[in-house]
């Protein structure tokens, strides 16, 4: 299966660039191919995470790190797991065993585009497309929010602060190219003259 050619949503209608911007200001990277996203839904979803990872974020919006894996509680009955693509099958198998029939487990990687927006101006770029308050304490590091970004649904995870500010953005695959263009447009003013 892995041999099949995977097409990133962010390459639609573009030259297929996987990144843009500069790290010293703001930078956008397509992580879709390397980062899988697992979706757990059901009343025991957070318990399943705790069973597999030893602990789980419990309040909606809370995020915790387990090595390279990010666990996000989105609703009392919905969780998201960001996991390196190479580990996704193994992690999904462990989760599936714990989930049994009480929780729906889906690898939704094909349905989402995942971007990392990083750099000191990352929050300012987001504030041009999203009404959330990205500063402390409204959205602290290691927190997630499901919100509207450039008028489309997005999951935003803050995974870094200060000079290492970094946001993971998961958007619907079909909106991927549009969101990429919107972010690139919002980044322009921070890249001018560089």
């Amino acid at each position, binding site marked *: *299966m892995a*041999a*099949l*050619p*995977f*097409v*990133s*949503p962010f*390459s*639609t*209608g573009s030259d297929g660039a996987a990144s843009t911007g500069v790290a010293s200001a703001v930078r956008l990277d397509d992580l879709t191919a390397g980062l899988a996203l697992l*979706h757990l*839904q*059901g009343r025991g979803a957070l318990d399943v995470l705790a069973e597999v990872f030893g602990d789980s974020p419990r309040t909606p919006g809370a995020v915790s790190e387990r090595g390279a894996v990010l666990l996000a509680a989105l609703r009392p009955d919905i969780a998201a797991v960001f996991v390196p693509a190479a580990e996704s099958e193994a992690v999904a198998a462990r989760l599936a065993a714990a989930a049994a*029939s009480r929780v*729906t487990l*889906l690898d*939704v*990687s*094909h*349905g*989402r585009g995942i971007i990392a927006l990083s750099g000191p101006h990352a929050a300012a770029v987001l*504030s*041009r*497309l*999203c*009404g*959330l*308050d990205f*500063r402390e304490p*409204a959205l602290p590091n290691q927190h997630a929010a499901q919100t509207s970004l*450039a*008028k*489309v649904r997005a999951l935003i995870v803050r995974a870094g602060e200060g000079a290492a500010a970094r946001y993971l953005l998961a958007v*619907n*695959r*079909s*909106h*991927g*190219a*549009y969101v990429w263009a*919107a972010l690139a*447009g*919002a980044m322009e*003013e921070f890249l001018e003259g560089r």
Partner: protein
Amino acid sequence: MSAETRRATRRLAGSPSQVIDRSRPLTFTWQGRPYTAYEGDTIASALAAAGVETFSRSFKYHRRRGLLCVSGDCPNCLVRAGDEPNVRACRTRVEAGMDVRAQNAWPSLDTDVMSLTQLASRFLPPGFYYKTFTRPRALWPFYEGVLRRAAGLGAVDPDAAPARFDHKVYEHADVLVAGGGPAGMRAALAAAGAGARVLLLEEQDALGGHLRYSGGDVNGQPAHEAARALAAEVRAHPNVTVMLDTLVIGAYDHGWFGAVQGKRLLKVRATAAVVAAGAHEQPLVFANNDLPGIMLASGVARLLHLWGVLPGRRAVVVSANPRGLQLARDLLQAGCAVTVAEMRATPEAALVEALRAGRVELLTGATVLQASGSKRVESVTLTLPGGETRVIPCDLLVLATGYLPANGLLNHAGAKPVWNAALNEFVPAGLRAGMFAAGEINGTHALAPIEREGTLAGLQAARFAGYGGDATENEIARLSAEVAAAQAQRAPWTPAQTLAPEQKKDFVCFCEDVTQADVRMTIEEGYDSMELLKRYSTISMGPCQGKMCNMAAMRLCAHHNRLSIGETGTTTARPPTRPVSLGVLGGRLLEPVRYTPLHDWHRAHGAILMNAGQWQRPEHYGDPLAEVRAVRAAVGLIDVSTLGKLLLEGSQVPDLLERIYTNRWRRLARGRVRYGLMVNEEGVVMDDGVTARLDDDRYYLTATTGGAGAVYEWIEWWLQSGWQLDARVVDVTELYAAMNLAGPYAREVLAAVASDLDLRDETFPYLGVRRGTVAGAPATLMRIGFTGELSYEIHVPAGYGLHVWQALMDAGAQYGIRPFGVEAQRILRLEKGHIIVGQDTDGLTNPFEAGMAWVVKTDKLDFLGRRALLMSDEQGHSKRLVGFTITGGALPEEGNQIVRPGAGPTGLEIIGRITSVRYSPTLDRVIGLCWLPVEMAMPGRTFTVRARGELLSGEVVATPFYDPEEVRLRG
């Protein structure tokens, strides 16, 4: 005149308060001629420095207008800069190469033909056009053309390159401070000191407010230096964010504020707000009060102290407060000859002494009766105590004659200003919780009380936002007492009388050229309240939005109605506080677009794309009829990734399906697919689609492209709020690419790339679902047929969609496969008589009327909409959706009306409409679906269609039009 001489005419020597950089000159053009400015100049300051006095022509009488307020409030300096009309010259930095032109003047600013209208002003009272141009009615188009050419300010050049506006930006703060003068800065420091995150927005390009240009000293320090010191303290505070050139334009519910910074709109959310927006200085009303050279004191002070421009050599200063006297002193020091007409009987002794020491003539108790001059003010007639008048030659008349609080933001949020007869000003009252006012907006004009009010408001706002403790509370209590005591001691800075006796050309409203006589006549005609006066005379409806005229209009309205100003009241303040271009409100265009995983293939293969909601879908690939023929005769492939797709899991999914669909689901076997129709509680058709049972507790539901989101939310809403079933729904629309392989050779093509699937009818029959691999990708396949042919709907992980599509196209090459688009699909489904929800149905359609009773099982226990459907069935139905064909082959359009002879101007009665119609290449005739009265909805009945003005003959035909026995579909 050379550019150099134009630059030098009125520029003073440099001083520390100035904001221009004389080492960086630049050149721009005004009316096509070159002018020199310095970096830091505005268009207005640069032109004023070069001796330009007429900046514009007035709206109605095309009178000359010069600088008045130099603060962005009045309409007098609106110009065209480059392609942009209605630019405020006093608020716009001049740029090298800028092409600045006057507007609203023809053939030139200096000689404007339309200025002749003032000779006929007695025939042009307010509302004259309502009365004059009403008869004869036939001439209205002519009148309209003339009026439209004469009306309006500025013009948009349709050939200009579109302006590029910035993204809207969201900002968040605990405390928003609107205004960066001394009150705002003190408020920001106090709130930040209590721990609040403060956002300070200032309209000007520097903090400091009037201290930057008011001259004089503050505690032994020049005022502008005191402003800079305070500004530095604000900027250094880690809790304060300062944004300059940013005007707060509106206050809305839930702590939202709108602000404009250049070409950018800010949407600010704040828990609390301090409005320290200051006050608008007010002109007096007297004859010829609009002549160039007549300026507000604050405008002169700005020119003098910020840009080093002396706008006149012989000034008369009419003063009603200490700032007027201070400015007179500053003008004197700048080399101007000054006469002061002091409206008060007892002005400040120290200032009077200083002026007299400079041999300035000071006339106490004086005011202005009229000004005279042709192209500019040349003299002023003063009225002295006792009624004596005196004419004084001058080239500058300065009005330091009181204030109108800039309380728009407070009023947007529900405050009701009340008249303070001691101050001759309105003061705020009834502020919304969490909003606080400080400084000149309160009628407080002396510096120390202004700063004290700022500190108090800042602390109150911080406390409201949850910061500070007992110490803050104690400080608030102490300051509140001090502020109250100080406010009780205030002397008025605004005179009780600002109107000279009614004369010609004594303008109350500079935007719309409304005079005292116009206001009187309007009131005499019965428009005697402020709101009516405003609407009839258009006073306060121009670019200044009442900032220059509202106070005078209220005084006149009160006078003519024999009421007090408090009884007369104000007009309603609405956002924005100042005109904002639509481009700023719109911001950068963000219009979501959705692409399927196969989008790039479609574009590379010549697809003509269409919008389907946000989706981009191939409408066709050049020849939709050929695409139809390919599906009927060979094989075709269509991208249906846009279909809504939901995964349902849980032991009670069958119960869920029974409740959301009108038909039965409990006996749906594993591996089987069933069509379902969804109606809402009113029994109105919502959506349709198929649902496949993949496993015991696992189902896969598809919805229409347009209904996908609504269906997901509908199911989720019922699951969460109503039923508590053991069923989970996950929207997997994005997870899968979907394609429909249809046509007589579909099986052969699929078999070539799906070797692990047994595709025979016996093992994979019509309405079956199977899991397998297609071109190596995991796939879910459903044998269904919207097209009426043998077809397989193939769902694969989206990232592999392009690979699978290409594999199918390659495998189908030998069978003549063609991609087909939405247009071919519409024809194919119409040949089968299938409806499209939302096209053939509307917000009132129930399944019985749509001919879908076969899918409604009212005898099952219950489902959403069952009760409504039972009731509507009992009441009977008046219309039916039926198939039809057109005699003679003419092709009507969707939406065309079905008519019969009847009453009315056309002699026709509308009895139905066409919802779908196409030429069918398979049947070689026009076919369609239409709504007809139920008594006509039987095969063979004829009817009349009104299409593009012609009457066509249609005939009801039974559906499906094609393959009614479903031989091709089922194999």
